[in-house]
Protein backbone atom coordinates (compact mmCIF):
# COMPACT_ATOMS: atom_id res chain seq x y z
CA UNK A 1 0.00 0.00 0.00
CA UNK A 2 1.45 3.39 -1.00
CA UNK A 3 1.35 6.30 1.42
CA UNK A 4 -1.46 7.86 -0.62
CA UNK A 5 -3.49 4.63 -0.55
CA UNK A 6 -2.86 4.28 3.16
CA UNK A 7 -4.12 7.76 3.98
CA UNK A 8 -7.10 7.47 1.65
CA UNK A 9 -8.25 3.98 2.56
CA UNK A 10 -6.25 2.69 5.50
CA UNK A 11 -7.90 1.81 8.79
CA UNK A 12 -7.09 3.70 11.98
CA UNK A 13 -4.97 0.70 13.00
CA UNK A 14 -2.99 0.72 9.73
CA UNK A 15 -2.33 4.47 9.83
CA UNK A 16 -1.33 4.21 13.48
CA UNK A 17 1.16 1.43 12.66
CA UNK A 18 2.69 3.54 9.88
CA UNK A 19 3.07 6.50 12.24
CA UNK A 20 4.58 4.35 14.97
CA UNK A 21 6.94 2.70 12.49
CA UNK A 22 8.12 6.08 11.23
CA UNK A 23 6.85 5.29 7.70
CA UNK A 24 4.77 8.48 7.62
CA UNK A 25 4.99 11.68 9.64
CA UNK A 26 2.10 13.09 11.61
CA UNK A 27 2.68 16.55 10.15
CA UNK A 28 2.59 15.15 6.63
CA UNK A 29 -0.62 13.29 7.47
CA UNK A 30 -2.32 16.37 8.92
CA UNK A 31 -1.27 18.53 5.97
CA UNK A 32 -2.45 15.85 3.51
CA UNK A 33 -5.99 16.03 4.89
CA UNK A 34 -6.12 19.80 5.29
CA UNK A 35 -5.04 20.23 1.66
CA UNK A 36 -7.84 17.88 0.61
CA UNK A 37 -10.43 19.92 2.52
CA UNK A 38 -9.30 23.06 0.70
CA UNK A 39 -9.07 21.40 -2.71
CA UNK A 40 -12.42 19.58 -2.51
CA UNK A 41 -14.28 22.74 -1.44
CA UNK A 42 -17.36 20.80 -0.32
CA UNK A 43 -18.12 23.18 2.59
CA UNK A 44 -17.65 20.28 4.99
CA UNK A 45 -15.90 22.37 7.65
CA UNK A 46 -17.06 25.59 9.29
CA UNK A 47 -13.53 26.13 10.61
CA UNK A 48 -10.18 24.37 10.10
CA UNK A 49 -7.71 24.58 12.99
CA UNK A 50 -4.69 24.45 10.69
CA UNK A 51 -2.10 26.21 12.82
CA UNK A 52 -3.04 24.36 16.00
CA UNK A 53 -3.24 20.96 14.25
CA UNK A 54 0.16 21.39 12.57
CA UNK A 55 1.70 22.45 15.89
CA UNK A 56 0.30 19.36 17.60
CA UNK A 57 1.47 17.20 14.68
CA UNK A 58 5.04 18.48 15.07
CA UNK A 59 4.94 17.71 18.79
CA UNK A 60 3.73 14.20 17.94
CA UNK A 61 6.57 13.74 15.44
CA UNK A 62 9.06 14.74 18.15
CA UNK A 63 7.51 12.06 20.38
CA UNK A 64 7.90 9.48 17.60
CA UNK A 65 11.58 10.40 17.32
CA UNK A 66 11.95 10.01 21.08
CA UNK A 67 10.18 6.64 21.02
CA UNK A 68 7.33 8.01 23.16
CA UNK A 69 4.29 6.90 21.17
CA UNK A 70 1.16 6.28 23.22
CA UNK A 71 -2.57 6.29 22.56
CA UNK A 72 -5.17 4.54 20.41
CA UNK A 73 -5.36 7.57 18.07
CA UNK A 74 -1.77 8.83 18.22
CA UNK A 75 -1.39 11.34 15.36
CA UNK A 76 -4.76 10.48 13.79
CA UNK A 77 -6.61 13.53 12.39
CA UNK A 78 -10.29 13.73 13.32
CA UNK A 79 -13.13 16.26 13.21
CA UNK A 80 -16.03 17.20 15.46
CA UNK A 81 -19.51 18.31 14.53
CA UNK A 82 -19.96 21.95 15.49
CA UNK A 83 -22.27 21.15 18.40
CA UNK A 84 -19.56 19.39 20.46
CA UNK A 85 -17.62 21.69 22.81
CA UNK A 86 -13.87 22.26 22.69
CA UNK A 87 -12.68 24.86 25.17
CA UNK A 88 -11.47 28.07 23.56
CA UNK A 89 -12.95 27.22 20.16
CA UNK A 90 -16.13 28.55 18.58
CA UNK A 91 -19.23 26.41 19.05
CA UNK A 92 -21.95 27.65 16.70
CA UNK A 93 -24.34 24.76 15.98
CA UNK A 94 -24.31 26.34 12.50
CA UNK A 95 -26.66 29.01 13.82
CA UNK A 96 -26.65 32.78 13.59
CA UNK A 97 -27.70 32.62 17.25
CA UNK A 98 -24.30 31.24 18.33
CA UNK A 99 -22.00 32.52 15.60
CA UNK A 100 -19.80 34.35 18.13
CA UNK A 101 -20.01 31.85 20.99
CA UNK A 102 -16.78 30.34 22.35
CA UNK A 103 -16.92 27.15 24.44
CA UNK A 104 -15.76 27.55 28.02
CA UNK A 105 -15.20 23.86 28.72
CA UNK A 106 -14.44 20.59 26.93
CA UNK A 107 -16.88 17.88 26.01
CA UNK A 108 -16.06 14.49 27.54
CA UNK A 109 -15.77 12.84 24.11
CA UNK A 110 -13.18 15.40 22.97
CA UNK A 111 -11.12 14.89 26.13
CA UNK A 112 -11.17 11.12 25.64
CA UNK A 113 -10.02 11.28 22.02
CA UNK A 114 -7.41 13.93 22.75
CA UNK A 115 -6.04 11.84 25.62
CA UNK A 116 -5.49 9.03 23.08
CA UNK A 117 -3.43 11.34 20.86
CA UNK A 118 -6.04 12.28 18.22
CA UNK A 119 -5.43 15.56 16.41
CA UNK A 120 -8.51 17.75 15.94
CA UNK A 121 -8.43 19.47 12.57
CA UNK A 122 -11.69 21.37 12.67
CA UNK A 123 -15.41 21.63 13.31
CA UNK A 124 -17.82 20.36 10.69
CA UNK A 125 -20.94 21.80 9.12
CA UNK A 126 -24.41 20.67 10.17
CA UNK A 127 -28.07 21.57 10.08
CA UNK A 128 -28.81 24.44 12.45
CA UNK A 129 -29.01 23.07 16.01
CA UNK A 130 -28.99 19.57 14.43
CA UNK A 131 -32.50 20.15 13.09
CA UNK A 132 -32.63 18.93 9.53
CA UNK A 133 -31.73 16.09 7.20
CA UNK A 134 -29.68 17.83 4.50
CA UNK A 135 -27.40 20.54 6.05
CA UNK A 136 -29.50 23.01 4.07
CA UNK A 137 -30.57 24.73 7.29
CA UNK A 138 -26.97 25.63 8.18
CA UNK A 139 -26.28 29.35 8.65
CA UNK A 140 -23.01 28.67 6.81
CA UNK A 141 -24.54 27.22 3.65
CA UNK A 142 -25.04 23.61 2.57
CA UNK A 143 -22.37 20.93 2.47
CA UNK A 144 -22.08 19.20 -0.91
CA UNK A 145 -22.31 15.43 -1.28
CA UNK A 146 -18.92 14.20 -2.56
CA UNK A 147 -20.65 11.57 -4.76
CA UNK A 148 -22.73 14.20 -6.55
CA UNK A 149 -22.26 17.88 -5.84
CA UNK A 150 -25.85 18.62 -6.84
CA UNK A 151 -27.11 16.52 -3.97
CA UNK A 152 -27.31 16.89 -0.20
CA UNK A 153 -24.97 14.91 2.07
CA UNK A 154 -27.82 14.23 4.48
CA UNK A 155 -28.01 15.63 7.95
CA UNK A 156 -27.80 16.86 10.44
CA UNK A 157 -24.18 15.59 10.70
CA UNK A 158 -23.72 16.15 6.95
CA UNK A 159 -20.35 17.90 7.27
CA UNK A 160 -18.87 15.04 9.31
CA UNK A 161 -20.20 12.35 6.93
CA UNK A 162 -19.11 14.14 3.75
CA UNK A 163 -15.67 14.87 5.26
CA UNK A 164 -15.11 11.18 6.03
CA UNK A 165 -16.47 10.10 2.61
CA UNK A 166 -14.23 12.58 0.75
CA UNK A 167 -11.29 11.41 2.85
CA UNK A 168 -10.69 14.83 4.38
CA UNK A 169 -10.23 13.27 7.79
CA UNK A 170 -9.79 9.76 9.19
CA UNK A 171 -12.90 9.88 11.36
CA UNK A 172 -15.40 12.35 12.74
CA UNK A 173 -17.98 12.54 15.47
CA UNK A 174 -21.58 13.47 14.92
CA UNK A 175 -24.73 13.53 17.04
CA UNK A 176 -27.89 11.56 16.39
CA UNK A 177 -31.32 12.56 17.73
CA UNK A 178 -33.49 10.95 15.04
CA UNK A 179 -30.93 9.65 12.53
CA UNK A 180 -28.47 12.53 12.21
CA UNK A 181 -25.45 10.20 12.10
CA UNK A 182 -26.89 7.23 10.20
CA UNK A 183 -28.83 9.04 7.47
CA UNK A 184 -25.86 11.19 6.30
CA UNK A 185 -23.59 8.13 6.63
CA UNK A 186 -25.94 6.30 4.22
CA UNK A 187 -26.09 9.25 1.81
CA UNK A 188 -22.29 9.58 1.76
CA UNK A 189 -21.31 5.89 1.69
CA UNK A 190 -19.64 5.72 5.10
CA UNK A 191 -20.23 3.90 8.39
CA UNK A 192 -22.13 5.76 11.12
CA UNK A 193 -23.07 4.58 14.60
CA UNK A 194 -25.69 5.78 17.05
CA UNK A 195 -24.77 4.00 20.28
CA UNK A 196 -27.26 2.81 22.91
CA UNK A 197 -28.70 5.79 24.80
CA UNK A 198 -26.54 6.29 27.89
CA UNK A 199 -23.41 4.64 26.45
CA UNK A 200 -21.59 7.82 25.47
CA UNK A 201 -21.47 10.94 27.61
CA UNK A 202 -23.43 13.89 26.25
CA UNK A 203 -21.46 16.31 28.43
CA UNK A 204 -20.46 19.18 26.17
CA UNK A 205 -22.99 18.34 23.45
CA UNK A 206 -25.37 21.24 22.81
CA UNK A 207 -28.77 19.85 23.80
CA UNK A 208 -31.50 19.39 21.22
CA UNK A 209 -33.77 16.65 22.64
CA UNK A 210 -32.00 15.33 25.72
CA UNK A 211 -33.83 12.00 26.00
CA UNK A 212 -32.94 11.12 22.39
CA UNK A 213 -29.52 12.74 21.69
CA UNK A 214 -26.42 10.53 21.43
CA UNK A 215 -22.92 11.24 20.17
CA UNK A 216 -21.36 8.67 17.84
CA UNK A 217 -18.60 8.07 15.30
CA UNK A 218 -18.68 8.39 11.50
CA UNK A 219 -15.89 6.30 9.99
CA UNK A 220 -14.52 4.51 6.92
CA UNK A 221 -15.44 1.07 8.27
CA UNK A 222 -17.19 -0.78 11.08
CA UNK A 223 -13.77 -1.69 12.46
CA UNK A 224 -12.83 1.99 12.77
CA UNK A 225 -16.23 2.85 14.24
CA UNK A 226 -15.69 0.18 16.88
CA UNK A 227 -12.25 1.60 17.69
CA UNK A 228 -13.68 5.08 18.19
CA UNK A 229 -16.66 3.78 20.13
CA UNK A 230 -14.30 1.81 22.38
CA UNK A 231 -12.64 5.08 23.37
CA UNK A 232 -15.62 7.42 23.73
CA UNK A 233 -18.04 5.12 25.58
CA UNK A 234 -18.26 4.79 29.35
CA UNK A 235 -19.94 6.22 32.40
CA UNK A 236 -19.47 9.93 33.04
CA UNK A 237 -20.64 11.48 36.28
CA UNK A 238 -21.03 14.78 34.43
CA UNK A 239 -23.88 13.28 32.39
CA UNK A 240 -26.61 11.99 34.69
CA UNK A 241 -28.13 9.94 31.85
CA UNK A 242 -24.92 8.03 31.18
CA UNK A 243 -25.24 4.43 32.34
CA UNK A 244 -22.97 2.68 34.79
CA UNK A 245 -22.38 -0.35 32.60
CA UNK A 246 -19.11 -2.10 31.88
CA UNK A 247 -16.96 -0.11 29.45
CA UNK A 248 -16.97 -1.50 25.92
CA UNK A 249 -13.69 -2.77 24.54
CA UNK A 250 -12.73 -3.56 20.94
CA UNK A 251 -13.32 -7.19 20.00
CA UNK A 252 -11.68 -9.12 17.18
CA UNK A 253 -14.02 -10.55 14.57
CA UNK A 254 -14.85 -14.19 15.15
CA UNK A 255 -17.25 -15.84 12.67
CA UNK A 256 -20.58 -17.09 14.02
CA UNK A 257 -24.09 -17.73 12.74
CA UNK A 258 -26.55 -14.90 13.32
CA UNK A 259 -30.32 -14.93 13.66
CA UNK A 260 -31.39 -12.03 11.46
CA UNK A 261 -34.81 -10.32 11.37
CA UNK A 262 -35.70 -8.14 8.40
CA UNK A 263 -38.22 -5.35 8.92
CA UNK A 264 -41.29 -5.23 6.73
CA UNK A 265 -40.13 -1.79 5.57
CA UNK A 266 -38.14 -3.61 2.91
CA UNK A 267 -41.48 -4.37 1.22
CA UNK A 268 -42.74 -0.78 1.46
CA UNK A 269 -43.80 0.51 -1.95
CA UNK A 270 -42.10 3.83 -1.16
CA UNK A 271 -38.70 2.13 -0.98
CA UNK A 272 -36.43 3.07 -3.86
CA UNK A 273 -36.16 -0.01 -6.17
CA UNK A 274 -32.35 0.18 -6.30
CA UNK A 275 -32.16 0.07 -2.50
CA UNK A 276 -34.62 -2.83 -2.42
CA UNK A 277 -32.60 -4.75 -4.99
CA UNK A 278 -29.27 -4.13 -3.26
CA UNK A 279 -30.56 -5.20 0.13
CA UNK A 280 -32.43 -8.21 -1.25
CA UNK A 281 -29.24 -9.42 -2.94
CA UNK A 282 -27.32 -8.87 0.26
CA UNK A 283 -29.89 -10.81 2.31
CA UNK A 284 -29.73 -13.73 -0.13
CA UNK A 285 -25.98 -13.68 0.24
CA UNK A 286 -26.30 -13.74 4.03
CA UNK A 287 -28.68 -16.72 3.78
CA UNK A 288 -26.21 -18.55 1.53
CA UNK A 289 -23.63 -18.11 4.27
CA UNK A 290 -25.88 -20.14 6.55
CA UNK A 291 -27.39 -17.40 8.69
CA UNK A 292 -31.04 -17.60 9.66
CA UNK A 293 -32.91 -14.71 7.95
CA UNK A 294 -36.64 -14.10 8.54
CA UNK A 295 -39.03 -11.22 7.93
CA UNK A 296 -40.91 -9.54 10.80
CA UNK A 297 -44.38 -8.14 10.25
CA UNK A 298 -44.02 -4.64 11.69
CA UNK A 299 -43.55 -1.51 9.64
CA UNK A 300 -41.50 0.45 12.12
CA UNK A 301 -41.21 3.45 9.83
CA UNK A 302 -44.95 4.03 9.54
CA UNK A 303 -45.22 5.22 13.12
CA UNK A 304 -41.89 6.69 14.08
CA UNK A 305 -41.72 10.14 12.51
CA UNK A 306 -44.83 11.86 13.96
CA UNK A 307 -44.00 10.52 17.44
CA UNK A 308 -40.40 11.54 17.06
CA UNK A 309 -41.48 15.03 16.02
CA UNK A 310 -43.72 15.44 19.06
CA UNK A 311 -41.13 14.26 21.57
CA UNK A 312 -38.08 15.93 20.03
CA UNK A 313 -39.80 19.27 19.38
CA UNK A 314 -41.27 19.34 22.88
CA UNK A 315 -37.84 18.84 24.39
CA UNK A 316 -36.27 21.28 21.95
CA UNK A 317 -38.75 24.00 22.85
CA UNK A 318 -37.54 23.73 26.43
CA UNK A 319 -33.82 23.22 25.69
CA UNK A 320 -33.63 26.17 23.31
CA UNK A 321 -35.36 28.55 25.74
CA UNK A 322 -31.89 29.41 27.02
CA UNK A 323 -31.08 31.47 23.91
CA UNK A 324 -32.44 34.76 25.13
CA UNK A 325 -29.74 37.21 24.01
CA UNK A 326 -28.61 37.97 27.56
CA UNK A 327 -25.87 35.61 28.72
CA UNK A 328 -24.55 34.55 25.33
CA UNK A 329 -25.40 34.50 21.66
CA UNK A 330 -27.03 36.91 19.27
CA UNK A 331 -28.94 39.95 20.55
CA UNK A 332 -31.17 42.10 18.35
CA UNK A 333 -30.11 45.73 17.94
CA UNK A 334 -33.35 47.64 18.50
CA UNK A 335 -35.93 46.86 21.15
CA UNK A 336 -38.42 48.58 23.43
CA UNK A 337 -38.53 46.26 26.41
CA UNK A 338 -37.14 43.02 27.80
CA UNK A 339 -39.83 40.85 26.18
CA UNK A 340 -39.51 42.75 22.91
CA UNK A 341 -35.80 41.99 23.00
CA UNK A 342 -36.39 38.28 23.65
CA UNK A 343 -38.85 37.98 20.78
CA UNK A 344 -36.80 39.89 18.22
CA UNK A 345 -33.57 38.16 19.28
CA UNK A 346 -35.12 34.72 18.85
CA UNK A 347 -37.08 35.69 15.75
CA UNK A 348 -33.93 36.95 14.03
CA UNK A 349 -31.36 34.57 15.57
CA UNK A 350 -33.06 31.26 14.76
CA UNK A 351 -33.62 29.94 11.24
CA UNK A 352 -36.97 28.84 9.84
CA UNK A 353 -36.75 25.13 10.69
CA UNK A 354 -35.59 25.76 14.26
CA UNK A 355 -38.50 28.17 14.81
CA UNK A 356 -40.91 25.63 13.29
CA UNK A 357 -39.79 22.97 15.75
CA UNK A 358 -39.82 25.27 18.78
CA UNK A 359 -43.33 26.43 17.87
CA UNK A 360 -44.58 22.89 17.33
CA UNK A 361 -43.06 21.77 20.64
CA UNK A 362 -44.52 24.74 22.47
CA UNK A 363 -47.92 24.11 20.90
CA UNK A 364 -47.86 20.44 21.91
CA UNK A 365 -46.93 21.34 25.48
CA UNK A 366 -49.85 23.74 25.86
CA UNK A 367 -52.29 22.43 28.49
CA UNK A 368 -55.06 21.75 26.00
CA UNK A 369 -52.80 19.40 24.03
CA UNK A 370 -51.54 17.33 26.96
CA UNK A 371 -53.29 14.22 25.57
CA UNK A 372 -51.25 14.50 22.37
CA UNK A 373 -48.00 14.64 24.32
CA UNK A 374 -48.98 11.72 26.56
CA UNK A 375 -50.11 9.66 23.58
CA UNK A 376 -46.73 10.02 21.92
CA UNK A 377 -45.29 8.02 24.82
CA UNK A 378 -47.82 5.26 24.14
CA UNK A 379 -46.57 4.90 20.56
CA UNK A 380 -42.92 5.13 21.64
CA UNK A 381 -43.55 2.34 24.14
CA UNK A 382 -45.20 0.24 21.44
CA UNK A 383 -42.12 0.62 19.20
CA UNK A 384 -39.83 -0.21 22.12
CA UNK A 385 -41.88 -3.30 23.00
CA UNK A 386 -41.86 -4.46 19.36
CA UNK A 387 -38.08 -4.14 19.26
CA UNK A 388 -37.72 -5.91 22.59
CA UNK A 389 -39.89 -8.77 21.32
CA UNK A 390 -37.85 -8.96 18.13
CA UNK A 391 -34.60 -9.32 20.07
CA UNK A 392 -36.00 -12.13 22.19
CA UNK A 393 -35.94 -14.21 18.98
CA UNK A 394 -33.24 -12.60 16.84
CA UNK A 395 -29.72 -11.18 17.24
CA UNK A 396 -30.05 -8.52 14.57
CA UNK A 397 -32.79 -6.41 12.99
CA UNK A 398 -32.06 -5.16 9.49
CA UNK A 399 -33.75 -2.21 7.81
CA UNK A 400 -32.76 0.07 4.96
CA UNK A 401 -31.22 3.21 6.51
CA UNK A 402 -33.25 5.45 4.21
CA UNK A 403 -36.06 5.03 1.68
CA UNK A 404 -34.12 6.89 -1.02
CA UNK A 405 -30.52 7.75 -1.82
CA UNK A 406 -29.31 11.37 -1.46
CA UNK A 407 -31.80 13.88 -2.90
CA UNK A 408 -31.07 17.07 -4.82
CA UNK A 409 -30.66 20.47 -3.20
CA UNK A 410 -33.98 22.26 -2.88
CA UNK A 411 -35.99 19.09 -3.45
CA UNK A 412 -37.43 18.89 0.07
CA UNK A 413 -36.47 22.11 1.84
CA UNK A 414 -39.88 23.72 1.25
CA UNK A 415 -41.79 20.61 2.35
CA UNK A 416 -41.00 20.04 6.04
CA UNK A 417 -43.15 16.92 6.33
CA UNK A 418 -41.26 15.23 3.47
CA UNK A 419 -37.94 16.34 4.97
CA UNK A 420 -38.93 14.98 8.39
CA UNK A 421 -39.63 11.60 6.79
CA UNK A 422 -35.93 11.23 6.02
CA UNK A 423 -35.72 10.02 9.64
CA UNK A 424 -38.47 7.39 9.28
CA UNK A 425 -36.22 4.34 9.55
CA UNK A 426 -33.63 5.72 11.93
CA UNK A 427 -35.68 7.50 14.61
CA UNK A 428 -37.04 4.19 15.93
CA UNK A 429 -33.68 3.63 17.63
CA UNK A 430 -33.79 7.04 19.29
CA UNK A 431 -37.33 6.45 20.54
CA UNK A 432 -36.36 3.05 21.96
CA UNK A 433 -32.77 3.76 23.04
CA UNK A 434 -31.41 0.87 20.92
CA UNK A 435 -28.13 1.19 19.05
CA UNK A 436 -28.11 1.40 15.25
CA UNK A 437 -25.36 1.49 12.68
CA UNK A 438 -25.54 2.34 8.97
CA UNK A 439 -23.03 0.68 6.69
CA UNK A 440 -22.56 1.05 2.92
CA UNK A 441 -24.46 -1.66 1.04
CA UNK A 442 -24.14 -0.82 -2.62
CA UNK A 443 -24.87 1.91 -5.14
CA UNK A 444 -27.94 3.07 -7.03
CA UNK A 445 -27.99 3.13 -10.83
CA UNK A 446 -27.07 6.82 -10.57
CA UNK A 447 -23.96 5.90 -8.59
CA UNK A 448 -25.28 7.08 -5.21
CA UNK A 449 -24.44 5.18 -2.01
CA UNK A 450 -27.03 2.95 -0.35
CA UNK A 451 -27.12 2.35 3.40
CA UNK A 452 -28.10 -0.72 5.42
CA UNK A 453 -29.10 -0.26 9.05
CA UNK A 454 -28.24 -2.88 11.66
CA UNK A 455 -30.05 -2.66 15.00
CA UNK A 456 -29.36 -4.79 18.06
CA UNK A 457 -30.71 -4.87 21.58
CA UNK A 458 -29.70 -2.16 24.01
CA UNK A 459 -26.05 -2.30 25.11
CA UNK A 460 -25.32 -5.08 22.61
CA UNK A 461 -22.99 -3.12 20.33
CA UNK A 462 -20.75 -6.20 20.30
CA UNK A 463 -23.18 -8.25 18.18
CA UNK A 464 -23.74 -5.21 15.94
CA UNK A 465 -20.03 -4.76 15.27
CA UNK A 466 -19.50 -8.49 14.77
CA UNK A 467 -22.23 -8.56 12.14
CA UNK A 468 -21.08 -5.32 10.48
CA UNK A 469 -17.51 -6.59 10.33
CA UNK A 470 -18.74 -9.88 8.85
CA UNK A 471 -20.53 -7.96 6.07
CA UNK A 472 -17.55 -5.70 5.44
CA UNK A 473 -15.19 -8.68 5.35
CA UNK A 474 -17.01 -9.87 2.22
CA UNK A 475 -17.66 -6.57 0.43
CA UNK A 476 -15.76 -3.51 -0.77
CA UNK A 477 -18.51 -0.87 -0.77
CA UNK A 478 -17.01 0.83 2.24
CA UNK A 479 -13.71 1.21 0.36
CA UNK A 480 -15.23 2.86 -2.73
CA UNK A 481 -14.14 6.48 -3.17
CA UNK A 482 -16.01 9.28 -4.95
CA UNK A 483 -14.43 10.67 -8.12
CA UNK A 484 -12.44 13.86 -7.66
Amino acid at each position, binding site marked *: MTENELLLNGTIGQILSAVKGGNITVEGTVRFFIERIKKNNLNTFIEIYEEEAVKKAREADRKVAAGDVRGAFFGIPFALKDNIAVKGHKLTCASNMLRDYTATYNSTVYEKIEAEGGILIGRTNMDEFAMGSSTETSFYGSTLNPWDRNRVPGGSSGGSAAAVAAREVVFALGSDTGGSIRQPAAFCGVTGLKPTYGRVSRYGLVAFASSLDQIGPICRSAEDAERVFSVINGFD*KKDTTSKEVEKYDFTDYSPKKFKVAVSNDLNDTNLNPDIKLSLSNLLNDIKRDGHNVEGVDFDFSKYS*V*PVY*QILSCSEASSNLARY*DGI*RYGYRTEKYDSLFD*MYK*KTRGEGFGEEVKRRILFGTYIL*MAKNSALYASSF*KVARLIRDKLKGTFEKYDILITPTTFNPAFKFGEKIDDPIQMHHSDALTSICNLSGNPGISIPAGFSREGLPIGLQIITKRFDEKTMFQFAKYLQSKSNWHRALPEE
Partner: protein
Amino acid sequence: MKIENEDVRKAAEIAKIYLNNEEVESYKIDLEDMTQEFLDVLQSLGIDLDEKFDFTQSSSKRTVLRNDNPDVFEETDKIIKNAPSVKEGLFTVPTILKGEN
Protein backbone atom coordinates in the same frame (compact mmCIF):
# COMPACT_ATOMS: atom_id res chain seq x y z
CA MET B 1 -56.58 18.94 12.65
CA LYS B 2 -57.66 22.56 12.46
CA ILE B 3 -55.39 25.03 14.21
CA GLU B 4 -56.26 28.72 14.48
CA ASN B 5 -53.90 31.62 13.88
CA GLU B 6 -54.43 32.51 17.54
CA ASP B 7 -52.97 29.13 18.59
CA VAL B 8 -49.80 29.88 16.64
CA ARG B 9 -49.62 33.40 18.06
CA LYS B 10 -50.06 32.03 21.56
CA ALA B 11 -47.30 29.44 21.03
CA ALA B 12 -45.03 32.17 19.65
CA GLU B 13 -45.81 34.36 22.66
CA ILE B 14 -44.92 31.53 25.07
CA ALA B 15 -41.79 30.66 23.07
CA LYS B 16 -40.86 34.37 22.86
CA ILE B 17 -40.41 34.34 19.10
CA TYR B 18 -41.44 37.29 16.96
CA LEU B 19 -43.54 36.22 13.94
CA ASN B 20 -45.06 38.40 11.23
CA ASN B 21 -48.53 37.60 9.85
CA GLU B 22 -47.12 35.74 6.89
CA GLU B 23 -45.07 33.48 9.17
CA VAL B 24 -48.10 32.83 11.39
CA GLU B 25 -50.06 31.62 8.35
CA SER B 26 -47.21 29.46 7.10
CA TYR B 27 -46.40 27.84 10.45
CA LYS B 28 -50.09 27.23 11.10
CA ILE B 29 -50.25 24.94 8.06
CA ASP B 30 -47.09 23.08 9.17
CA LEU B 31 -48.40 22.62 12.71
CA GLU B 32 -51.72 21.36 11.37
CA ASP B 33 -50.00 18.85 9.11
CA MET B 34 -47.63 17.63 11.83
CA THR B 35 -50.46 17.21 14.34
CA GLN B 36 -52.73 15.47 11.83
CA GLU B 37 -49.96 13.04 10.93
CA PHE B 38 -49.72 12.02 14.56
CA LEU B 39 -53.48 11.64 14.92
CA ASP B 40 -53.43 9.36 11.86
CA VAL B 41 -50.81 7.18 13.54
CA LEU B 42 -52.90 6.91 16.70
CA GLN B 43 -55.92 5.93 14.62
CA SER B 44 -54.05 3.30 12.62
CA LEU B 45 -52.70 1.76 15.82
CA GLY B 46 -56.08 1.97 17.56
CA ILE B 47 -54.67 4.11 20.36
CA ASP B 48 -57.22 6.18 22.27
CA LEU B 49 -56.13 9.80 22.62
CA ASP B 50 -58.00 10.19 25.89
CA GLU B 51 -56.64 7.09 27.56
CA LYS B 52 -54.33 8.13 30.41
CA PHE B 53 -50.65 7.31 30.21
CA ASP B 54 -48.80 6.25 33.32
CA PHE B 55 -45.58 8.22 33.19
CA THR B 56 -44.21 6.47 36.28
CA GLN B 57 -43.91 3.32 34.18
CA SER B 58 -41.92 5.01 31.45
CA SER B 59 -39.10 6.73 33.26
CA SER B 60 -36.15 5.49 35.22
CA LYS B 61 -36.97 4.06 38.64
CA ARG B 62 -33.90 5.74 40.03
CA THR B 63 -33.66 9.48 40.43
CA VAL B 64 -30.21 10.57 39.40
CA LEU B 65 -29.01 13.63 41.20
CA ARG B 66 -25.53 14.84 41.90
CA ASN B 67 -24.47 15.97 45.32
CA ASP B 68 -24.83 19.71 45.55
CA ASN B 69 -21.20 20.50 46.26
CA PRO B 70 -20.12 24.10 45.74
CA ASP B 71 -17.13 24.55 43.46
CA VAL B 72 -15.08 27.51 42.29
CA PHE B 73 -15.10 28.23 38.57
CA GLU B 74 -11.89 30.11 37.85
CA GLU B 75 -12.70 31.42 34.41
CA THR B 76 -15.80 33.54 34.79
CA ASP B 77 -14.19 36.10 32.46
CA LYS B 78 -14.55 33.60 29.61
CA ILE B 79 -18.27 33.26 30.33
CA ILE B 80 -18.70 37.02 30.53
CA LYS B 81 -16.90 37.43 27.19
CA ASN B 82 -19.68 35.48 25.46
CA ALA B 83 -22.36 37.95 26.58
CA PRO B 84 -23.62 40.50 24.05
CA SER B 85 -23.72 43.32 26.63
CA VAL B 86 -21.75 43.56 29.86
CA LYS B 87 -21.08 46.34 32.33
CA GLU B 88 -18.61 46.02 35.21
CA GLY B 89 -18.67 42.24 35.01
CA LEU B 90 -22.47 42.00 34.98
CA PHE B 91 -24.87 41.10 32.18
CA THR B 92 -26.92 44.12 31.16
CA VAL B 93 -30.60 43.88 30.27
CA PRO B 94 -33.22 46.45 29.23
CA THR B 95 -34.90 48.32 32.08
CA ILE B 96 -37.46 46.02 33.69
CA LEU B 97 -38.76 48.13 36.59
CA LYS B 98 -39.79 51.69 35.90
CA GLY B 99 -40.18 54.34 38.57
CA GLU B 100 -38.37 57.04 40.49
CA ASN B 101 -34.62 56.68 40.85
